Every structure is written in C-alpha cells, then in structure tokens.
C-alpha cells in the first residue's frame, strides 16, 4: 500500500493525516493499521503522567533534547482533555515543547481525549504504531493531567514516569491509589519549591514498605529530583540523569526478558478494544439507526422489560452463536 510506504519512508504529513483519520475513526485508516501492525515493535515507548500542571510538558521538552543529543529520533504524543460540553479542545502542551520546533528529528502530535476516561485518547495505541513505523526511536506519550485512576498509560509504555510536585497537601495520601503503582521512575518536579525533600522521603518510605514482589524483575522505582526548569544548567543535568535512568530501565526490561510482559498488556487492551469496535458498535449503531434503541429505552422505563432480557434478546438477533 502506498500510504504504508510513505510512512516507512518517514513522511510526517502522511503519518499525521493517518493519525487524524484514526482519531476520526475512518474505516480506511483501520485498513492501513492492518498493514503497519506487523512492522511495529521497534521503538522505546515512554509514558509521562502526573497531576495537571505538574510539569509534564516541560520535562518532555527536556527529554527530547537529551535523546536528540544521543542521536535518537523522537516522537511525542501529547494528550489534552476534550471539553465535555462542546466537544472542542485546546491542545496546549506544544507551547512548552519549542526547543526542537524546527528539528526534523522530532515529531510532536497533539491529541484530544474525545471522551476517553483513562488519561489518554482512544487513538493513542494506534498513533504509537504509526510513529514506530515512521522510524521514531523514542516515543514519548504525555497523558492529560491525571488524578488517581487514569492509568491507561501503563498499557502502552515500556517505561512510565510519574511526575509529582511538592506542596499539594497530603501528597502521598492523595495519590496513593493507582498512579503510584504504575511508576518505573518517579520525578519529584519543581524541587525548588518547599516540601520536595519531604515528598521524596515519603516516596522512599512508601517504597520501603512495599513487598519485594511489587518490583517487577527486581526494579525498584527510582526517585529523581528536578530542581527548576528555569535554571538551564541544573535542569539539563537533572534531565540527563533521568534520560540515563530511562535507558537503564529499558535495558533492565530487555535483560530480564520483561518486554514481553509489558507488550502483553498492550496486546490485551488492543484486542479488547478491537472486539468492542467490531462487534458491539455496529450493533449499537443499528439499534440507534432503526429507532429500536428508543423503543427499548421506553420499555425499560415502563418496566415492560428489564435491561438484561432486552440485551439477551438483542444478542440472539445479532450475534447468533455467541450465546
């Protein structure tokens, strides 16, 4: 396929358009992914997550610089939230990623969540595939500002960075669920602010209490401090350290044969998602289109039928052999 060739050849325009068509869920884009899929699996995917304004984009900008100095090409997928009221979105992560704005070795693409709840956009998994085939050595995925539950990033990354900032009250308390368990590397950001030593100590204590089985293949998450993004010297030094730690983590995954277990998660999610899109959605669409959905809602409201019987009935009609 011509588009596959273009993307293999590094055509940013074709890649961005394909990502666009994937976001818009155009049928021909799915077809292209079928062709690209066997070519994927080469890039190192790094997830960056943390609360809103924690400094994820600023860090990403720094990481881009470090990896470029090592001669690697970098793709970035930056996710920002869609407004639930208007369906529009302001994608502003790019403002902070300007150092390599004209570098052909860097490809930054913003995505809106479009209602997805896990901190990412639905199309992220496929967008990673596109950047992978495009030839990006490193793919950095920045999630939306997260709370405790938006942990989908773990399904798509080899290495997850959780960015924390001091001064948000009972720090560890507030974030202990979910988010902490997915970190391979903690970044204590804005360490110029008061409370960063306390935050680091609490993290350390939390890791000390965790059972050894919590550390996959014996990897104890590192805690890295970043002083101040506005002091280039110390910032760049801190970023170099983080960059090296990220590479160390990847090497750990390779050495301990753990890449597979990370990719198993991705495969599971992708398959589930594909089944949903292929089987459930056409049925829903048909029900909506024919007005049958409205009828059923009315009936459920009047208690003429319960939702389970209605669903079983739909399954019998549409998914013969599935029950």
């Amino acid at each position, binding site marked *: 396929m011509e588009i596959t060739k273009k993307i293999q050849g590094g055509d*940013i325009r074709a890649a961005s358009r394909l990502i666009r068509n994937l976001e818009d*869920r155009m049928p021909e884009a799915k077809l292209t992914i079928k062709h690209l899929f066997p070519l994927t699996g080469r890039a190192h995917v790094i997830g960056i997550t943390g609360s809103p304004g924690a400094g994820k984009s600023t860090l990403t900008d720094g990481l881009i610089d470090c990896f470029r100095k090592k001669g690697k090409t970098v793709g970035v997928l930056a996710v920002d939230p869609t407004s639930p009221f*208007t369906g529009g979105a*302001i994608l502003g992560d790019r403002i902070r990623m300007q150092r390599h704005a004209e570098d052909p070795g860097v490809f930054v693409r913003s995505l809106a969540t479009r209602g997805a709840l896990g901190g990412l956009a639905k199309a992220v998994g496929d967008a990673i595939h596109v950047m992978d085939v495009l030839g990006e050595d490193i793919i950095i995925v920045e999630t939306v500002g997260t709370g405790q539950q938006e942990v989908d990033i773990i399904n798509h990354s080899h290495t997850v960075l959780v960015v924390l900032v001091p001064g948000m009250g009972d720090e560890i308390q507030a974030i202990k669920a979910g988010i902490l368990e997915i970190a391979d590397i903690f970044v204590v950001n804005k360490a110029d602010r008061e409370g960063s030593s306390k935050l680091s100590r609490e993290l350390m204590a939390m890791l000390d209490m965790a059972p050894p089985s919590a550390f996959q293949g014996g990897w104890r998450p590192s805690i890295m401090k970043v002083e101040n993004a506005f002091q280039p010297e110390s910032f760049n030094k801190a970023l170099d350290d983080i960059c090296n730690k990220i590479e160390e983590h990847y090497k750990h995954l390779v050495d301990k044969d753990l890449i597979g277990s990370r990719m198993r998660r991705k495969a599971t999610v992708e398959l589930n998602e594909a089944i949903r899109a292929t089987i459930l959605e056409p049925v829903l669409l048909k029900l909506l289109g024919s007005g049958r959905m409205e009828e059923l809602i009315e009936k459920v409201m009047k208690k003429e039928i319960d939702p389970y019987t209605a669903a079983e009935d739909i399954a019998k009609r549409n998914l013969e052999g599935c029950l």
Partner: protein
Amino acid sequence: MSDRKLRVMVAKPGLDGHDRGARVLARCFRDAGYEVIYTGCHQTPEQIVSAAVQEDVDLLGLSCLSGAHRYLYPAVTKLLKDKGADDIMVIGGGIIPEQDFQLLYDAGLKAIFVPGATLDTIVTWINTNVKPRA
C-alpha cells in the same frame, strides 16, 4: 462510526506579544467544537509551518498586532507552498490596515479579521468555508 473534527491552529508569528486576541480566539474555537492547537507567542514562520504540518490542521489562523503582518503572513504561506502543504487554509487577523488586505489575499490568505469583528462572525465564516479534510 466516523467522527470528523475540525483541527485549527492559532499562531502568533514574530516578536509581537499581544496574545490576548489569540487566547480569546483559541477558547472561542474550542467552544465551537474545534480541536485547537495553540503554540504561544514569538514563533518563526518556520516553526509555525512545521507545527501545522505535524498537527495536520485544516486551518491556520495567524494573529499579529505589531504591524509586521506584511512580511510575516506571506512568509508563512510561501513556506507552506514550499512544503507542499498549501492545502492548509490560512486566515489572519490583528491590526491590519485596509490597504494591506489585497497584498495578503494575493499571498494566499482567505480571510482577514480586524478589531471589532465579532467571534460569531469569525466562527460562522469558518463553519461555512472550512471542512475537515479526508
């Protein structure tokens, strides 16, 4: 089940620091249901074009209040052409005297909005004239 969305970039070329208008527009475009890429102030035409291509936008809106539009806007449209990306529609706004309109239209801009243009007028124009590309 496809779901086409308009992607729009709002960019401020040059040294102009008047970003209020650009921010107001970004928010207004979000409220109109577009996905808006806002890149902040002090962008070179090269940066703007490279971002517009990477983001695959349908529409690029330039905002400049400093008087440098005569040079900066055509620089952007020329670069888009050089990169084979002149299917991205370009419009502009800011402090632009009427005698400069023709020069900008000749450079490829499709519309110009000056102070006083209501947000309604701008969104209506976009909805009528720009469609998400396949």
